[in-house]
């Protein structure tokens, strides 16, 4: 008789992920049982509490993992290394800030989400839902599930779990992308694109996992590594192509999530269409988690590959880094929509991050950790500010976000502090000294130079110079240009990047003020649009807190980065495990 032996599970190690996923489940129950009025506050408190608890458990686990080197649960289905904990900490911090922005309803009393996201835009059903004052609170459990996936993503040795984590983080995001209150068609289009392309990427990754399994007979990354480094079986000599193709496909799946070229095409459309708080959350957290997973997979494999294969992998990463930096910066220069510009800038940052991979060194891992934190703070802050700059019609009714760049002209006159904070975030993204971005770039390029890849570093700095151009152009627009003066100056011929203009009737109708309940005619809405002025709506608090925290973080990491650098250095003691 075979005796079933229950696996010994070290629950403490699972805490950072479990607490978030469990809170997500509770959140779903809250939707079912808590009365309408109390639902939103309950959800917000629960979400924030869960994320803070997750962060606290990461901190508590830190001491233990730092001394033991790693923590291993159920044969590697869950694997905590100091680096993983570092990524989890970054994701948790950014997610807390992201949720603050998501929770803000601004003084208009509306959050960024449609009352009934499933309704076909422009139908009476939608109007009815709006008039009934329905509100969307499912976003909070969805955000929690996505965050849980992100926390798990870099924390596993098992490729199947890696895939599951990818799906757990992706599926809620597909839904969240479709829930924008305004520009509904654009939002749904974005979600559909993201879903289709994301499914392809998942399938490709799964196929890669299958190939690696076919080669090594195991879905454990460390196991595959073991087979690689101990070539006793003849299979290995017969089919080295299997593992190469497998690794390549897995890497493609991860690069897709990061938005690295040539797998970046979904980024601008999705970032533009998704509700802006979700865009910020995605841009900051998903990138951190996916980069963490990529470091985990690529660094582990690089340690086991033969020199020629390793060099091939490195050359591939060179190509991806160069292409991504190039595509991101060059395309960002010609954008006229602020969300699309930030999207391309986010692609470019993926390229800078890829630079740190060259050499697969601890310096590189350290640079990656600091970079995702610095970039995440600036990006979250920037998108949070985008949510507050709105259009306003002649009657003073606040409409959707003013995303055309020309509408940002002279923002400093309306709201100097907001403009200053945005300028700070842009300068940090540009890597200007005394901001977090500079120290981050310094680390990344150091890693490249250490690895002898100074041409890549030079290309990187030149791409940074191009990036500075469009960041600073926006700063000038906000701080130094008068609104009227600029109207002719930045108005480009329509077409590039302003997909919103092309979506026609329902789109324009969507711009009608939701709270009024009045369905305007198309013509009236159009004329309103053309006369819309720009207004900065006051936050009800949470978004302001998030912006202030991001700004403080950007400055502190730029001026006194020592603490964060020490922490990143400890976390980056990355070493492959030999089972």
């Amino acid at each position: 008789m075979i005796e079933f032996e229950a696996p010994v599970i070290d629950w403490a190690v699972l805490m950072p992920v479990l607490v978030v996923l469990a809170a997500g489940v509770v959140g779903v129950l809250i939707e079912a049982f808590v009365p309408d009025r109390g639902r939103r506050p309950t959800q917000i408190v629960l979400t924030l509490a869960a994320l803070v608890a997750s962060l606290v458990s990461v901190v508590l686990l830190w001491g233990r993992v730092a001394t033991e080197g790693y923590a291993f649960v159920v044969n590697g289905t869950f694997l905590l290394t100091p680096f993983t904990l570092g990524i989890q900490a970054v994701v948790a911090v950014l997610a807390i800030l992201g949720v603050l922005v998501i929770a803000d309803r601004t003084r208009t009393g509306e959050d960024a989400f449609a009352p009934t996201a499933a309704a076909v835009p422009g139908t009476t059903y939608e109007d009815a839902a709006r008039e009934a004052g329905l509100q969307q609170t499912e976003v909070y459990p969805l955000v929690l599930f996505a965050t849980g996936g992100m926390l798990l993503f870099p924390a596993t040795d098992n490729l199947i779990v890696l895939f599951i984590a990818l799906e757990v983080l992706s599926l809620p995001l597909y839904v969240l992308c479709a829930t924008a209150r305004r520009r509904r068609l654009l939002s749904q289009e974005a979600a559909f694109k993201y879903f289709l392309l994301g499914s392809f990427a998942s399938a490709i990754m799964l196929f890669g996992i299958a190939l690696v399994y076919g080669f090594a007979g195991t879905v454990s990354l460390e196991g595959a590594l073991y087979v690689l480094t101990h070539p006793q079986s003849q299979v290995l000599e017969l089919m080295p192509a299997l593992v190469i193709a497998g690794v390549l496909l897995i890497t493609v799946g991860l690069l897709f999530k990061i938005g690295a070229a040539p797998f970046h095409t979904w980024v601008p459309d999705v970032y533009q269409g998704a509700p802006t708080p979700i865009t910020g959350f995605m841009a900051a957290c998903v990138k951190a988690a996916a980069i963490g997973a990529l470091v985990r997979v690529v660094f582990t494999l690089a340690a086991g590959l033969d020199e020629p294969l390793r060099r091939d992998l490195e050359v591939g990463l060179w190509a991806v880094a160069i292409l991504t930096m190039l595509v991101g910066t060059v395309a960002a220069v010609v954008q006229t929509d602020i969300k699309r510009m930030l999207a391309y800038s986010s692609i470019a940052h993926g390229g800078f991050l890829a630079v740190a991979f060259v050499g697969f060194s601890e310096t590189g891992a350290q640079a990656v950790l600091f970079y995702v934190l610095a970039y995440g703070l600036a990006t979250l802050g920037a998108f949070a500010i985008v949510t507050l700059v709105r259009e306003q019609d002649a009657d003073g009714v606040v409409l959707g976000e003013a995303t055309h760049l020309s509408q940002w002209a002279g923002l400093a006159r309306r709201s100097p502090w907001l403009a200053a904070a945005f300028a700070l975030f842009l300068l940090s993204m540009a890597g200007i000294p005394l901001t977090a971005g500079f120290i981050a770039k310094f680390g990344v390029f150091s890693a490249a130079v250490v690895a002898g890849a100074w041409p890549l570093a030079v290309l990187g700095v030149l791409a940074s110079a191009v990036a500075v151009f469009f960041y600073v152009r926006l700063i000038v627009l906000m701080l130094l240009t008068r609104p009227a003066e600029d109207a002719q100056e930045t108005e480009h011929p329509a077409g590039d990047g302003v997909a919103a203009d092309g979506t026609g009737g329902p789109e324009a109708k969507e711009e009608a003020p939701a709270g009024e309940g009045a369905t305007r005619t198309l013509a009236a809405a159009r004329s309103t649009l053309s006369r819309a002025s720009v207004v900065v709506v006051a936050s009800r608090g949470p978004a302001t807190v998030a912006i202030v925290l991001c700004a403080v973080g950007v400055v502190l990491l730029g001026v006194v980065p020592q603490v964060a650098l020490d922490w990143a250095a400890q976390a980056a003691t990355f070493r492959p495990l030999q089972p």
Partner: protein
Amino acid sequence: MTMSTFPWLTALVVWPLVAALATVLTGAGRGRPASGPAAGGGAFSAGAARTVALVGALVEVALLVGAFAAFDTSTAGTHQLTETYPWIPALGASYAVGVDGVSLLLVALSVGLVPLVILAAWHEQGGDHVRLRRYLATVLVLLSFMVVVFTARDVFLFYVVFEAMLIPAYFLIGGFGQGAQRRYAAVKFLLFSLAGGLVMLVAVVALYLQVPVDPATGLRPQDAFLTESVTGLPLDPTAERLMFCAFFLAFAIKAPMFPVHTWLPDVTQNATPGTSTLLICVLDKVGTFGMLTLCLPLFPEASRWAAPAIIVLAVISILYGAILAIGQTDVLRLIGYTSVSHFGFIILGIFTFTSLGISGASFMMLNHGISTGALFLVAGFAIARHPRRSQQIADYGGMRKVAPVLGGTFLVAGLSALALPGLATFVSEIMVFLGAFARWPAPVLVAVPAVVLAAVYVLLTYQRMFTGAVGADVAGAKDLDGREKTVAGVLVAALVVLGLMPGPALDYVREPAGVSVEHVGETDPEPVLGALEGSEQ
């Protein structure tokens, strides 16, 4: 706390920031309407804000006097008034400041010019007091950065400020300029500077990696970026040359030197004269200062290797800048091109590797700042008298008759620019020529005609603007008022004093020059004049 232990340099760095904050806050809460150029916080606060800025700048001058008093000229070649604190130990960066003779003079130039620029800008920005307040605050922030960059004894600190400085400078050009193309000029300036600066960043990283690892900890020392730590490292020749090129490119763009000077005339044409003064007379000195204090000691072998090419480029700058200056129709653009020529002289002097040439170049950094500053500011006074604020030389004429003091000060500043004996620039130019002749006779002979060209561009401009028939637009122009006379008078007096009595100032540059020659591993050649004198005897 005694004179020499007081943190003079940190005080010089921090005080302008305090003054900038005070300037911005003065009258800030005074119900400022959101639009309209004349909307300021009322006449009272506008006057108050600029007065606050001026007083702040004068207090800074007082602090400078204290620093001078604490400085010992007998050891001008070593860093004094030093302060060192760890800043980012993980990256080997420290907050380390200190001055030798040359850097003290350049700090003095920065600190001395700022009150004059503030005075000159008294009625600028089209009467928009809010803009003026912001302009003056930006100038003060820039001053703080300039003090750090000239006193930094840590390569990382130097680099950080070298780059961070671009942001206030960018706003000064693009935000507060008066030309129609100011944004274009500002973007060009920023992209040129950043392209150079970012390439330098790679070299800064590479330099850090050359610092040997401490075998006990496996890490690089926490003060790895101190200039002492990175000087005299055993470098691989190829790496050293590459790093030298990266540093030199950044400094040559900043300086600016042919062929990377093209941003400069656009900037001077579109910025206000006060901004140009700060940018060309002080900020660009960071380029030549960097060549002298970083390129030479850090990469001595590469400096010697590159010197012939640099000398050729410097000579081209000298001639090309002068020739292009002659052809200009815009007076501010013209002054910009003369600076290209003068920076050529400074670079020529540095790469002579003789104490005479380097002393001359160091002294010239100071003189050029004063004489070009005088030209910019006085030309700005002339432009302010034109009803359309035209910068075209052809729109003026005969102003000497209606505004004699204006004409006179412009002439003195111009004569200093053409190195007339008795004025400051003459001394330094002759030192550069003599120093260079001892080592590179042929290029010097090629460069000598530039002296004649300088006479052409200065005197021709003076002739067109200030002599002859009085131009219709400027017939009713008034002469300089008390404020403008103060600005012009201080600068002219400095030119005359330094020209007649260069000795005290040279005490500050002589010893550092010797140290630089030593760093680069050369010895002074036989003095040419001394040899001549000997043969006569």
